[in-house]
């Protein structure tokens, strides 16, 4: 019996040693989550959906006060009336998304089977409009933010389960591109996303705490008090990239969409809880 156990252990050990150098998305995600679990052992997994408010108690108290009267409500209302729009050909958004508004947010981003491109929610909204002969919205504009805020609000509580099909080279390539973007140093400050939001998560950056990357995409779009308006995930990423003194990419560029794909996959298992309120 002992012999068998020892043999088993040796076998397991050999397996561990001989793991291939390539780690697939599933292994990446386990390692990503395990890192934050060991770094913040007191924070339950579900809390990461709240971003920095999982870590910073003082900011959390302010946020709870704000959530009592959420500043994104106006955007949600505007989004609701936009959602009910009937297009010239009699179709509406619910035809495009093939579901009610309450079952949408957690399905994005996804990889289009034909083009192999990552489709984000904002992009899907515009694709829908174009398909039905409507003028597309400007990315980062008031309408698309309101519409995505409404969709996120209605889809609250649904769990992200983004698929990266390892047999689909296009999906895998998009994932790998997003991952490379995430870990690449950039700008005059020579920082990668991971330098701040993995290695230094929870530490001060000037007067604020750095959020953990786990759960970053779940609560977008957000209302930012300092801007007094809604903000998309890509606008937020652009802000980060400016802060490290690099030139931001265009909203909904391939770079950002791949990054969103990677990040959201990392946050699988968390609830969609957008729109959020952030200072």
């Amino acid at each position, binding site marked *: 019996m002992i012999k068998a156990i020892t043999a088993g252990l040796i076998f397991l050990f050999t397996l561990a040693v001989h793991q291939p150098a390539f780690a697939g998305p599933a292994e990446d995600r386990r390692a990503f989550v395990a890192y934050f679990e060991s770094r913040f052992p007191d924070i339950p997994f579900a809390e990461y959906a709240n971003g920095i408010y999982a870590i910073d108690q003082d900011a959390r108290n302010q946020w709870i006060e704000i959530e*009592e*009267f959420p*500043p994104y*409500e*106006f955007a949600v*209302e*505007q989004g609701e*009336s936009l959602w009910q729009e009937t297009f010239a050909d009699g179709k509406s958004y619910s035809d495009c998304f093939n579901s009610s508004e309450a079952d949408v947010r957690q399905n994005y981003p996804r990889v289009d089977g034909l083009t192999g491109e990552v489709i984000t929610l904002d992009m899907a909204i515009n694709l829908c409009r174009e398909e039905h002969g409507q003028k597309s919205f400007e990315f980062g504009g008031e309408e698309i933010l309101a519409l995505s805020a409404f969709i996120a609000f209605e889809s609250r509580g649904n769990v992200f389960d983004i698929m990266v099909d390892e047999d689909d080279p296009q999906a895998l390539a998009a994932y790998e591109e997003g991952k490379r973007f995430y870990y690449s140093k950039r700008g005059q400050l020579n920082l990668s996303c991971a330098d701040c939001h993995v290695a230094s998560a929870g530490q001060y950056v000037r007067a604020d705490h750095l959020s953990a990357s786990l759960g970053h995409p779940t609560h977008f779009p957000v209302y930012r008090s300092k801007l*007094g*308006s809604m903000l998309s995930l890509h606008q937020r990423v652009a802000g980060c990239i400016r802060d490290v003194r690099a030139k931001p990419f265009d909203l909904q560029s391939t770079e950002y969409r791949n990054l969103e794909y990677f990040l959201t996959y990392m946050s699988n298992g968390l609830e969609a809880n957008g729109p959020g309120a952030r200072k």
Partner: protein
Amino acid sequence: MASTIKVKTKLSDDVATVKSLMLHPMETGSRKDPDSGAIIPAHHITQLIFTNNGKQVMVANFSTAVSKNPYFSFSFNGAKAGDTLNISWVDNIGEKGELETQLK
């Protein structure tokens, strides 16, 4: 869109706590358009009035120092369930917003 005002009220004994949020750009008049350089004209709430059953319970004179989409909270005595709370604002170019609600 519905009203430009949102309100929540809470009664404990005869003290009503009112929390309100207004949708307003609150332009100060000293900001410039980043593209054209032209000054964005001032556009801000000048007066916000709360009346309870027709009696003024709070008057606030706002100027340019108040944030966009202002949040305003206060409490007052002598309230009872079913009272009609009326909120109205007027801004410097004459636009108005109004909302009526019952205390509960």
